[in-house]
């Protein structure tokens, strides 16, 4: 199907984009890679009067090293983030998640910021970014503000970004040398995860000194598995110890029931996938 008619602008600076957004208010929608927005417009589930394209704004693209953090521009495509050596070195969890996100064509177009702003509870980037304790940089008419990952995801398809604001970049604290794994459970090719688990951890002579674990599609937002993290700290990276810690993966979750599985099944998956993700991340 074809979207309803809309007006279109493609500003070349962030300032122009913010002005256009303020002028059109509720009637405007931002387009980044379009990989989630265009299917929605084509199904006519949404019909904005104005579409503001961020594709020509160079300042929103690219990856840089900023001391204790890696900074990823909102408009950087998945394929670029997934193959970037800086990201691989300091935030290995991210390329692990991107490897199995959608398919090659969509990874060429879809953007890091677009996926996070879209906030699909089944999206593959939320849990890794939450586990890594990222900070979101958001620009609006009143200037720039930062939001920690814990406060960024509000609900299904809802984030801390207001209607007149644009996500400009995501700062990922360096986790250099940490093991990482993203365990995604799907039934068919290039599907959204039924459940997925993002785990990154630091080991010291076979002992897990610190672990960070995020869950995908176990609630209306990505969830930090703090119970598992606590239980893993100081434990040996062995199958038994990890199995016991993984039993806490369902704490604080509220998984959906749908055609791919009911909540009970998802709770079962969360434990199994956490065990696999942690063991893999530990290289055990």
């Amino acid at each position, binding site marked *: *199907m*074809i*979207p*309803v*008619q*809309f*007006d*279109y602008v*493609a500003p070349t600076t962030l300032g122009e984009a913010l002005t256009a957004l303020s002028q059109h208010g509720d009637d405007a929608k931002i*387009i980044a890679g*379009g*990989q989630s927005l*265009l*299917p929605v*417009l*084509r*199904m006519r589930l949404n019909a904005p009067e104005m*579409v503001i*394209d961020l*594709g020509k704004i160079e300042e929103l693209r690219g990856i840089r090293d900023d001391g204790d953090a890696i900074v990823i521009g909102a408009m950087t495509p998945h*394929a670029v983030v997934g193959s970037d050596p800086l990201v691989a070195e300091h935030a290995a969890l991210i390329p692990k998640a991107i490897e199995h996100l*959608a*398919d*090659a*064509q*969509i990874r*060429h*177009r879809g953007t890091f910021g677009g996926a996070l702003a879209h906030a699909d509870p089944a999206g593959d980037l939320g849990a890794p970014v939450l586990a890594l304790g990222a900070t979101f940089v958001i620009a609006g008419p009143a200037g720039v503000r930062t939001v920690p990952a814990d406060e960024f995801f509000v609900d299904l398809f809802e984030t801390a970004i207001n209607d007149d604001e644009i996500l400009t970049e995501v700062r990922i604290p360096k986790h250099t040398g940490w093991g990482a794994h993203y365990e995604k459970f799907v039934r068919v*090719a*290039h599907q959204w995860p039924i459940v997925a688990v993002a785990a990154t951890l630091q080991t010291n002579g076979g002992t897990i000194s610190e672990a960070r674990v995020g869950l995908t599609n176990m609630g209306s937002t990505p969830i930090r598995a703090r119970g598992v993290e606590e239980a893993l700290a100081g434990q040996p990276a062995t199958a038994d110890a990890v199995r016991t810690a993984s039993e806490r993966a369902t704490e604080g979750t509220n998984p959906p029931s749908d055609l791919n599985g009911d909540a009970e099944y998802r709770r079962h998956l969360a434990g199994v996938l956490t065990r696999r993700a942690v063991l893999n991340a530990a290289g055990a």
Partner: protein
Amino acid sequence: MTRINLTVDGEKVADDVEARMLLVQYLREKLGKTGTVIGCDTSNCGACTVHLNGQSVKSCNVLAVQADGAEVTTIEGLATDGQLHPVQEAFRECHGLQCGFCTPGMIMQSVDLLKENPHPSEEEIRLGLEGNLCRCTGYHNIVKAVQYAAEHSSGAVEGAPA
């Protein structure tokens, strides 16, 4: 209407288009390039795959206005001087098709895959073609065709180092 300028299969084109026009519609309806086909409504099937600035994309999931200033290659632009592209040749040689509807997209994605990974394993081929569905389920010969192309054309694949 928005003015767009782009290069399609080596030719410069300029048009006034509605902002909502999809790139695939533009290619088929405005330029008559019906070699690129539409197989679904959900951006899942990959039949509409083309190259945008040298990278594979699903042209049903890109607005024509987003391709302003870009270089687009469709299945119709792969052959040069009447010579099939090595990947087209491989699909013919290995009978990598049944009804043929998914073929343009399969070939465009295979060219992209071989550019990034000139010698893929079978698993890498299957993963690389993950976004392309074949409803005749001829995947087996499609994978063989990509392997054949990799064996017979190193260096001849679009964009690969000579």
